[in-house]
């Protein structure tokens, strides 16, 4: 018999595949993982503490830094929470703009995920293809908000800027283009035998486990639970659009991949419909008080971000700053299942599983 010895391997916080400053301490025997201990907090910026001394509008830029790949949904969740508390009506045009930018953000976010996931698995080209399309989306969002990632676009009661001249048309033209590219991705990646071998059956968990670990988004839908807050607890204008909630029931990295790719298509459908229904004119910011003071009490709202269920809890004392602000950050919850999934896997699968969960460290660490 060969005598083997366990070895501690420190993956991260600086590692190409941990997507930021995530660290995971592995106990390995050969390449087999015996135990995994995730260590997070390297990117903790104390957003919630800072928010206690900021007015509501001032908090919005901080939310951009949480999930920096889909900052629009983060913008939305805090606005939505305050609007729910104060019962503010959003002008229709503003609501459409919100839906458009959120869905564009979702497509962009999934594209980053697609690219980096394939990069993790070892294919370099899809990354660059995905980033080409993402670049177009970032361009749209830049045009409307003035920033490429940290948009700070939404305001309580609407959005900051109206869509510039010709913007809607550009977005409309983007949809068929993106569909075409998406078909290209499927040609390049989805049928690739090596890719299938890498993802099929990897990182499996059951429906019950997914619920038990509070997973959300594609991580939940990959187990066959077709749950999407856009559909099931409609907010904004999502009840006006026809779209599906893709769900696959194999519960592995392959199902998660399929889910996200299908979600891009669904988002495109929503964008298409939103562009069609887009009001020709109208206000983009409701008449809200200069200083926003939600009534005393607390509220928790949750919406569907590209990574899952993002929630915002506000405890208000009726002052202009929140008494307590708390974000339910989907990446943080989704990451919890990782140590469980890793036991018995090898290091290559660590990358596949971690990538499949689709975390953004800014969000994990808050």
């Amino acid at each position, binding site marked *: 018999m060969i005598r083997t010895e366990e070895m501690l*391997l420190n993956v991260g916080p600086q590692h190409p*595949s941990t997507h930021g400053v995530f660290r995971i301490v592995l106990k390995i025997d050969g390449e087999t993982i015996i135990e995994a201990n995730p260590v997070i907090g390297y990117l903790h910026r104390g957003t919630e503490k800072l928010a206690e001394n900021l007015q509501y509008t001032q908090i919005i830029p901080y939310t951009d830094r949480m999930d920096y790949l889909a900052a629009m949904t983060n913008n939305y969740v805090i606005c939505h929470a305050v609007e729910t508390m104060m019962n503010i009506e959003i002008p229709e045009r503003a609501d459409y703009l919100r839906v458009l930018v959120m869905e564009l953000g979702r497509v962009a976010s999934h594209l980053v995920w697609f690219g980096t996931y394939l*990069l993790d698995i070892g*294919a*370099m*080209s899809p990354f*660059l293809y995905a980033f080409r399309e993402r670049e177009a989306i970032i361009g749209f969002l830049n045009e409307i908000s003035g920033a490429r990632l940290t948009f700070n676009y939404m305001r309580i009661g609407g959005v900051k800027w109206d869509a510039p001249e010709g913007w809607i048309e550009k977005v409309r033209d983007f949809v068929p283009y993106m569909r075409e590219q998406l078909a290209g991705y499927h040609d390049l990646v989805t049928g690739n035998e*090596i890719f299938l071998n890498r993802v099929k059956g990897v990182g499996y968990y059951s429906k019950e486990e997914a619920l038990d670990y509070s997973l959300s988004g594609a991580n939940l839908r990959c187990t066959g639970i077709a749950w999407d807050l856009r559909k099931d607890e409609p907010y904004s204008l999502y009840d006006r659009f026809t779209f599906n909630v893709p769900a696959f029931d194999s519960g592995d990295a392959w199902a998660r991949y399929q889910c996200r790719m299908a979600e891009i298509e669904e988002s495109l459908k929503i964008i298409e419909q939103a562009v069609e229904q887009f009001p020709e004119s109208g206000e983009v910011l409701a008449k809200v008080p200069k200083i926003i003071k939600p009534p005393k009490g607390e509220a928790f709202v949750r919406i569907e971000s590209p990574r899952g269920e993002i929630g915002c809890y506000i405890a208000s004392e009726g002052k202009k700053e929140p008494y307590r602000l708390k974000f339910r950050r989907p990446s943080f919850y989704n990451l919890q299942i990782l140590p469980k999934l890793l036991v018995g896997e090898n290091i290559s699968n660590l*990358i596949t599983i971690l990538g499949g969960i689709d975390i953004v460290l800014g969000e994990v660490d808050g």
Partner: protein
Amino acid sequence: MVNDLLTSPPGWMHAAIFFGLGACLLMIVLGFVTYAILAERKVLGFMQLRPGPNRVGGRFGLLQTVADVLKLLIKEDTIPKAADKPLFILAPVLAFAPAFMVLAAIPFSDHLKFSDLSIGLLYYIAISGITTVGILMAGWASNNKYSLLGGMRSAAQMISYEIPLVISVVGVIMFSGSLNLTEIVEGQKTVAYMFLSPLGFIVFLISSIAELNRTPFDLPEAESELVAGYHVEYSGFRWAFFMLTEYVYLFAMAALTTVLFLGGWNPVPFLGFIPGIIWFALKFSLIVFFMIWVRGTMPRLRADQLMEFAWKVLLPVALLNIFVSAVVKELFLR
């Protein structure tokens, strides 16, 4: 001229001439490596919608690699404190030397060759195996867990893939009846062996990519898993040696594939007026392009799948190829 030298009795003069020729070849190979790296970056850039190097040396970045090499030369040479120093220094040399040695056996045209070994093919395979030792040594000596894993993967992979690689050429040896690479090329005057033994050709191509540690078989240095694998602790020119090894092997392997399966310097029918060396260069470039293409397209395999693929798929197919080749030889070449 070379043939005369090879057949005449040895002496100091010979040694000097061969040394000169060797140095020449080294320069040619380094030149190739320089531009192979550039070509790879350009082709990949083209496939990945980006320009690739385009600043140093004109708009095609012709001097980019030269600048890179210069940078590597003047970079600080670091050796980790806890590393096994002698092995750490020896490893890059041990990895690179065989890469250059194998070139001696490869004929580039019927006149341009540096040796005429009767066991040329065997020589190539035997010598190239030594590189594994260098890589394993680098992985071990670095005293880094990632490099150790990379080194181990590398050893397992290269040993596994050497077997289908060797067996897949048995068909070619049967057709030509020789291990001498020149004679193998001579045997393909009418038809290239890739047509006679397509199975062998495919197995050889796959195994050769695995031998070269290139995508999709680049596990030993999988940057997304093992950061950089066995050479994670190397910097400066020691690191450059590993890169050099990789590209020299690319050169050697592409040349060997050309010789074994594509008919070497034999022209395509009716185009015999083009010199053999050009044909060789064309076929050779085709193989290099193919390998870059594969790199631009494929994701990476997983370690266990890689092993499974070698032993459960490639090896049986290579064995089948021997049988099929024997049948083909009996039926058509008799």
